[in-house]
């Protein structure tokens, strides 16, 4: 492991939390959450082609500050992620699309995606 001095990062906003999760995709985009790599995430469901809902363990009242995902795949794949809806403050849910161009598309069978959510855990500025 890296044995170096790291410095604390800061934000202007209070109570910003990082949540990471890892998903592997099966046939027809069926997602499987890697529990050990997804602290704070309860589940993921496929709602429709290329459309997913992630449910967190907890609500975050300040909502999503940022969301990003990257596909981990040995083969080139024209997929990017788009945030569809933020309801982490009410129902603990994050909805996102996997897109190819302007079409929601299931990632290929066997691909993996790494995601990061940056959440605000209160509404105080």
């Amino acid at each position, binding site marked *: 492991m890296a044995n170096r001095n790291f410095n604390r990062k800061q934000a*202007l906003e209070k109570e910003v939390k990082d949540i990471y999760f890892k998903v592997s995709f099966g046939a027809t985009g069926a997602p499987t959450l890697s529990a050990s790599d997804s602290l704070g995430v309860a589940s993921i469901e496929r709602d429709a082609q290329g459309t997913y809902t992630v449910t967190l363990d907890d609500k975050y009242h300040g909502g999503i500050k940022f969301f990003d995902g990257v596909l981990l795949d040995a083969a080139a794949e024209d997929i990017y992620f788009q945030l569809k809806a933020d309801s982490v403050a009410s129902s603990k849910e994050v909805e996102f*699309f996997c897109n190819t161009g302007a079409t929601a598309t299931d990632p290929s069978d066997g691909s993996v995606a790494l995601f990061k959510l940056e959440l605000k855990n209160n509404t105080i500025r």
Partner: protein
Amino acid sequence: MANRNFQTRQALEKEMKDLYSNITFGASTAATATLDLTEDIVLTSVAAGDDRNDETFTVQVAAAADNPTDTVLAVFSGTAAAITVTITPNDGTNNSATPVNLTTAELVELINDGSVTGKNVTVTDTSSLRALQTATGGDTTPLADSGEGDGVAATFANGAVADPTVNDDLGFSSVARSSKGVFLATLPEKYNKLRSFSGMILLSTVTDTKIQLVSEAMATAGTITFRTITGTTLVDPSSSTKALLKMEVRNSSV
């Protein structure tokens, strides 16, 4: 709220700061153009935004000719930037000596619908220019060669896209649209160095829009410029589109 233990975030670099912003893209206003007639025709661009500003729409009225049967000919030609519609009235030669013409109100109908009720108009529009605008106005004044409408040109103007609204001003104090799909964001303070920038579209429908950094002047002006693109084409996201933006900046040169 989540009542859990979270760990301190760290980086190798000193004085790393995360800045977030949340913006809503501005509404677009369609460009309009006015044909100066007895009763003016106002053309409105179908595409909203400023793309059509300075583009033209010209009416030409040819001398009545021996068109087939009772037809009036309408030819849309030129380019999207300079459209010409040429109307050739029917002189009646092939229509039992009954001439047929269009009024300016019927020209409006033709532009809107591609046809005129009660008239037989042969439309030639190989570049699909007619549907690039809608029209209102006109009256019962007939179009006339060297008269009403002939050679009248209108120039589109006043198309616009509003600046984005900054919903979260801790990150950016303002975001201004510089040109189509290009935005200048100004931070409340300067920072020594920009270390990363990312943008994520938040929209309930699928959109092929990505956010890309154009340039930054974080240390000198506290600004960054970013673009919104589809493929490699600059686009203005719709006014219902939000974007989450994140910057990582360094607040020291140590």
